[in-house]
């Protein structure tokens, strides 16, 4: 069964002018007739589909549109053109450690994040201890979140997000969380979820990791889809492209 299907999906941001110049200048420019809205195609005509249990590696240089693609699939952003179908519950781990509130304690933040991910209060009450244990933050529970190190923050975010067994898992550069020991633990946890039949999207700059884990690969460059297909073939091509650069 197709879990994720994208047909000619495009996303364009409105950049420059509009947001930065403010109301006054917009009105003046509109009167003068010099007003133009600039657009920036973050994703341009992307099409692919994934079956249940597949792991898609997304590669491309910085600014290729990888993170935007993850946002579109997790439903945070709507595509400006094209159609898309995503079937199943999603857990998306985008840029861990952001979106927490520095003024609140670790415990408060854990509950808040859990609530945002759609967990119920009962579920959080039951699993709170195991989250903290997995994140190894027992003695920091009542500390202010801003006092944590960045590694600790990502560890907590990872632990909260990976508690449930999602059908679709979106990982944006997250398998490099924390120190060596935690990385091993988190990779194991990830693999558990993936082996459980979750369809996974993995954004990574580590080609070795993609080669090892992915069943399909999508190569993006400046928002355009360069290639989509078998892992080995595309990784080889990408390797060559990077060397030439």
């Amino acid at each position, binding site marked *: 069964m197709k879990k994720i299907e994208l047909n000619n999906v495009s996303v364009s941001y409105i950049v420059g002018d*509009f947001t930065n110049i403010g109301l006054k200048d917009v009105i003046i420019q509109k009167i003068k007739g010099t007003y133009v809205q600039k657009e920036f195609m973050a994703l341009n005509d992307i099409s692919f589909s994934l079956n249940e249990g597949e792991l898609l590696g997304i590669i491309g240089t910085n600014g290729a549109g990888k993170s935007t693609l993850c946002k579109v699939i997790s439903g945070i952003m709507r595509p400006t053109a094209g159609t898309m179908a995503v079937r199943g519950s999603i857990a998306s781990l985008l840029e861990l450690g952001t979106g927490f509130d520095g003024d609140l304690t670790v415990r408060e933040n854990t509950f808040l994040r859990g609530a945002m*991910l759609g967990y119920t209060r009962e579920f959080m009450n039951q699993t709170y201890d195991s989250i903290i244990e997995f994140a190894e933050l027992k003695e920091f529970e009542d500390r202010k979140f801003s006092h944590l190190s960045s590694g600790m923050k990502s560890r907590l975010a990872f632990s909260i997000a990976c508690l449930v067994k999602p059908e679709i898992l979106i990982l944006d550069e997250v398998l490099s969380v924390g120190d060596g020991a935690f990385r091993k633990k988190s990779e194991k946890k990830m693999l558990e979820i993936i082996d459980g039949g979750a369809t996974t999207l993995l954004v990574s700059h580590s080609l070795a990791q993609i080669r090892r884990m992915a069943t399909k690969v999508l190569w993006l460059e400046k928002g355009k889809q360069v290639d989509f297909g078998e892992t080995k073939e595309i990784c080889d091509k990408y390797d060559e492209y990077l060397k030439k650069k």
Partner: protein
Amino acid sequence: MLQKLTAQIRQVKKYQFLFSELVKRDFKKKYKRTILGMFWSILSPLLQLAVMAVVFTKFFGRNTEHYIIYLFSGNLIFSFYKDSTNGGMHALMSNANIIKKINVPKYLFMLSKEVSSCINFGLTLIIYFIFVAIDGIPFSFRFFLLLYPVACLLIFNIGVGFILSALFVIFKDIQYLYDIFTQLLMYLSAIFYTVSVYPEKIQKLFYFNPVYVYITYFRRIVIDGVIPGVKYHLLCIGYAAAVLIIGMVIYKKYNYKFMYYI
């Protein structure tokens, strides 16, 4: 229709936990790292009231009965309006980090801000009634009718919040414009003066100011001891409903576009 409604209710239920956590967060954050904590929400309107009473009693207070309560009513309602709409305006942008990363309905951030300003208002309202008692106005069951303008004002604030937060995502200037606007609105809301100094025709113009209508409702009940007419009730709910509908239309139309701007 019914199906849509039950789906809506299910959604509200689903986000109930998130909503209560957000309210808690907004409330905690407001008073974190202040020694006086929650007392600020009582102290700040009292200080404002004190200054106004000292300054204006000489000018306007001579012919007005229960001038302190007159002043307090105006201040109370206006502060609620101002706090809550200002909070609503910033609600989306100050949570941009979350909205960008996690798929949650954005209006929840706005509503939670409104609820925490409402709690604040509730605290000031208690002080208000203490003042009312001290000033020798006997308690009456009429006071329960005050729930009506408060509810209307809450709806009104939510509507304004929707409009402002959407504008603020796109135009950052709106915060300065709105500052000027609220200042003007304050002078036009007859907080420290009475409208009776104006000719009849001009007095009627005041009804175009929704905040003035809500303030007047309060004064009628508490100071004049009468229940305002049907006209007031219709105006109260009319303004609230109109603004809420406009706000919701704007939100519905643009909410997914916010992502391109944040």
